Structure formats: C-alpha cells, structure tokens
C-alpha cells in the first residue's frame, strides 16, 4: 500500500504553489504599503515646509503673521525641558534598574514593581498630563513651569528607561561580577566600577530613545497648561515656556492656510532634532558597545 498518492500530489502542487505566490505578493504589498506611508509623510512635510525654513525662522519669536513666525521660543523651550527631563529620568530610571537587577530579591515585591512598570508603560500620555496637573502644577504649586513639565515627562518615559537599563545591566556577563567580588570589591564598588561602565552603551542608547519620545510629546504639555505664544525665553526652571510640539500644534490648528507651511517647517525642525538624537544613539551603540 502506498501512503502518498503521487499523482494526486502532483495534480495539487500547481494550485498550492500559486496560492503561495499570491500570498507572498500580498504580504509584500502590505509591507510596501507601510513603507510607502512613511515616504509620503516625509515627502509631504519636506515639500510643504522647506520653503519657510530660513535662519529667520530659527531666531524669530512666534507671530500673528505667518511670514514672520519663528520657532525660537519653542526650540529653546524644548532644550530647557530636556535639561530637566534628562537628568531626572536617568537618575530615577537607572537607579530603579540597578535596584531591581542587583539588590532586589526575586519575590512578590520585585515582581509587583516589575508588573507595575509594564502597566505604567501602557498608560496614555494624556493621563500623565492629568497627574502632572494635579501633583506638580497644583499641589506642589510649580505652576506651568519648566520644572513641572519636566517632572511630568520624566515620569512618562521612566518605564522605557528602566526596561532599557535593566536589559543593559542583565547583558553584563556574570564572570565580570564574580571577578570583581573575588578581588574583594564590595557590591556598590562592583556596580559603579564594573557593571555600570560595561552597561553604559545600552543605558545611554535606551535613554536617548526615551528622551526623543519626550521631546515629541504634546498631550501632557497641553493638559498641564503650557502656553503657546511666548515672546521671551525662560531664564530658569521655574519660568514658563513653550515647546516644539506645542508650537507645531498651535500652527497646525490655525485656519489660515499659510500657517500650515509654518507648521510643516516647525515639523522639519523637530524631525531634525529627533534625527540628531537617534544618530547619537546609534553612534554610541556602535562605538561603545562591547560584546563579551
């Protein structure tokens, strides 16, 4: 008795190959569609905004007149914001990761903290805005300052930094740790002199990617009441400010068509900032990444 009917297999083979081809084409088409969306988006924005880009655009304040509108206050404001978010979120994020990976005993509390971090990452950014509004703006009376916005953003990207730092720390081989202890180093010495230097590339890369998310976030800033039209630069962290995405949001939502060009130019500036941050992250990853 034959288990395989040769003729039947041969007869059906053609059809099966055709189905395979058709679906391969469909799957490829879908992938291409996603990539096409990116190309159209970038092309539209560059073609709309490039004409408005000039040195004046970078050094002018916002204006009622589209032709004179500039992005200075927003650009400087975003840099101020990052000056608060970067140290705050990195100290909290790396500290949490070191605790979870190096000190915490595997148990209920640790897995609770871990689960909490995963859930926190899924909370919509606008809800973080409500948290910032209540805690930082009202209860701690920081007002709509750089500090209030910076703390809110730091909490928003905290889960991302913790997870990235944890992965980086986990990828440091155990032998390095053992060798350090064997030489008589204490736990903290091992962490500061061995583990963190070995994990620094991963930590920095993850942190920069998280910061580039913070620099593009708009919703929390709107909710905590960051203004748009500002004709001065903040002098300190307690001053109010505006940020790139806020300015872009304001220009986009204006009815005059001319402001759309201005908004597109603003988007180009934001994307260049993002591109710069991502390149730095890639550079760090390639330059300092030691493989063990």
């Amino acid at each position: 008795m034959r288990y395989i009917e040769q003729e039947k297999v041969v007869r059906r083979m053609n059809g099966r190959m055709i189905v395979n081809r058709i679906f391969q084409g469909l799957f490829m088409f879908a992938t291409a569609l996603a990539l096409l969306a990116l190309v159209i988006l970038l092309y539209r924005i560059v073609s709309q905004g490039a004409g408005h880009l000039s040195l004046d655009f970078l050094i002018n304040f916002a204006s009622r007149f589209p032709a004179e509108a500039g992005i200075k206050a927003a650009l400087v404001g975003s840099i101020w914001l990052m000056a608060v978010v970067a140290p705050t979120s990195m100290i909290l994020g790396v500290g949490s990761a070191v605790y979870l990976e190096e000190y915490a005993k595997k148990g209920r509390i640790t897995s609770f903290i871990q689960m909490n971090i995963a859930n926190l990452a899924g909370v919509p950014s606008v809800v973080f805005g409500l948290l910032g509004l209540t805690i930082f703006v009202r209860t701690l009376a920081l007002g709509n300052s750089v500090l209030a916005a910076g703390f809110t953003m730091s909490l928003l990207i905290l889960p991302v930094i913790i997870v990235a730092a944890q992965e980086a720390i986990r990828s440091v081989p155990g032998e390095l740790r053992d060798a350090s202890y064997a030489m008589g180093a204490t736990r903290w010495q091992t962490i500061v002199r061995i583990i963190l230097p070995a994990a620094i590339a991963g930590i920095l890369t993850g942190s920069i990617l998280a910061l580039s998310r913070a620099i593009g976030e708009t919703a929390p800033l709107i909710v905590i009441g960051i203004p748009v039209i500002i004709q001065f630069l903040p002098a300190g962290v307690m001053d109010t400010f505006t940020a790139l995405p806020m300015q872009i949001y304001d220009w986009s939502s204006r009815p005059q068509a001319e402001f759309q060009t201005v908004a597109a130019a603003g988007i180009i500036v934001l994307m260049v900032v993002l591109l710069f941050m991502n390149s730095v992250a890639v550079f760090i990853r390639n330059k300092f990444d030691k493989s063990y």
Partner: protein
Amino acid sequence: MRTSVQEMIAKSKDKKSKKIIEKLIPVLLFLIASVSVLTTIGIILTLIIETLTFFTRVPFTDFIFGTTWLPFSNTEARFGIWPLIIGTLKITGIAIIVAVPIGISAAIYLSEYASDNVRRVVKPVLEVLAGIPTIVYGFFALTFVTPVLQSFFPEIKIFNAISPGIVVGIMIIPMIASLSEDAMSSVPKSIRDGALAMGSTKFEVAWKITVPAALSGIIASVVLGLSRAIGETMIVSLAAGSTPKFDGDFTGSIQTMTAYIVQVSKGDAGYGTTIYYSIYAVGFTLFLFTMAMNILAGYMSKRFREEY
C-alpha cells in the same frame, strides 16, 4: 614596607564610611525604584479623588448612562459619557481595520519570506515610523489624508472620523508588526523545517504552523495596538473635530475622550468648575479602558503561550 592584598582588603573593610555607604545605597535605590509604584498610585488616587468631586455635582448614573455630552452649555450642561466613548470607538475601529491586516501581513512577510538583507532594511524603517511624534501624524491627517479622501468622497467634512482613524492605524502598524514578528520568530525553526520537509509551501507553513503557534503573541500585539489607539490624543485633537455625537456617522466631526481633555485644557475652564473636574472623570474612564486592554494583552500572551 609592602602591604599584602589581604591586608589592603582588611584595611578597607574597616573603613566606617564605606560600611555606611554599603548600607545606605540599597535603601536609597529602593526609594528610587518605588517612584514608579508611587506614580501609579498617584495616577489612580488623582483620578479617583477628582472624579469623586465631579460626582458630587453630576450624578453617577447621568455620567455612565447619559447619551448627551454638552458640558459648555450655560443653561443645561449635560455630562453623559457615551458620545465620547462612541467617538473613541469609531477611531479605534477604523485604526484596527487598517493596522491589523497590514501589520500582521508585514510580520508574516518579515518572518517567513524576507531575506536577511530585506529584514535588515525594513525593520529599522518601520521603527522610524514608530518614532514619529503623534503631532506630526495629526498634521498629516489634517493636511493630506483628509483632502485626499474629500477628493474621492465629497461628503466627508474637514473634521471627520475616517481620516484620523486611518492615520492612527498607520501609527500602530509598526507596533503590531514588530510584536507579531517577535512572536513568530520565536517559533522554533525545527517545527518549520519539519513542515517544509513534508512538502509544505511557505504559505502553508506560515498559515498552518507559524501563525497558530504564535497566535497568543499576535493577539496580544493587536490588543496593545487597540490600547494605543484608544489613548491616542494629538491625531484626533487635530483632525477629528470637537463634536461629541451619539450616532453612527463617520463623515462629520466627532470627539473622543482624549480630545475632550485637550479641548478643556486648552481653553480656560477655571480651576474648581464642573468642567475642570469632568476631565478627570473622562480621564478615569480612559484609564480604565486602556488598563483593561493592557491586562488582557498580558494575560493573552501568558495564558496561551505554547512552550517548546
């Protein structure tokens, strides 16, 4: 005089400052690690307390059963949440229709068909798509997708549910594609090779072996995408309008929960007004929706995971 290593270690062990540091650091780090827990507690407490204040002014039943959302009316303000939920569901529904077929197809293509070279190029490009700020997507929806749709279907208004729905879908494609691809790639090669050796075509391997084996991960990715779409704020604020409606119309202006929060925050609803507290009630509803989705996704990927 030479000191031996043992002596050096013994000497350094005796240093008091060092002992204190070794004791203090874990405590300090524990406090830092608890910030993330405090954030969650802060979010929940904030939402609950302000929402309770809201319910002292607007009856709870009016809020969860009401089908009229008219917060800015001077004479007869109404706070029935359903129009905002319907608005959110419209956007989410369109987004899922766009993102699920494209995202999962891309994942199958990348994990089953694409060569390593193609994968090395496509995956980072999809990551770029994921890294674009939502405000940029919002601008794209308002200034490109809506006019294009209008040229085909003139009945579509400048603010509508379709255009932002599609763009939210584009935004969550990378997320669904990359999480599904991760799930499919973790299916062992030996199973795939077994099917191929039995004479299966690549499509049969994908459809009958890989996808069923990775189903829990794929579903989890879709649920996470849903949660992202529900919480998406800037695209809908810019392109969907601000008209809370309790109907099935997709071509006109609508309002989502997130867009309402932005609308109130942008205006100057004074601190302490009912409208001010209403954004917390809406935020709480939104939080519950996304939290349910996130827990469901976590449960799906744990419960139905097939171990090899």
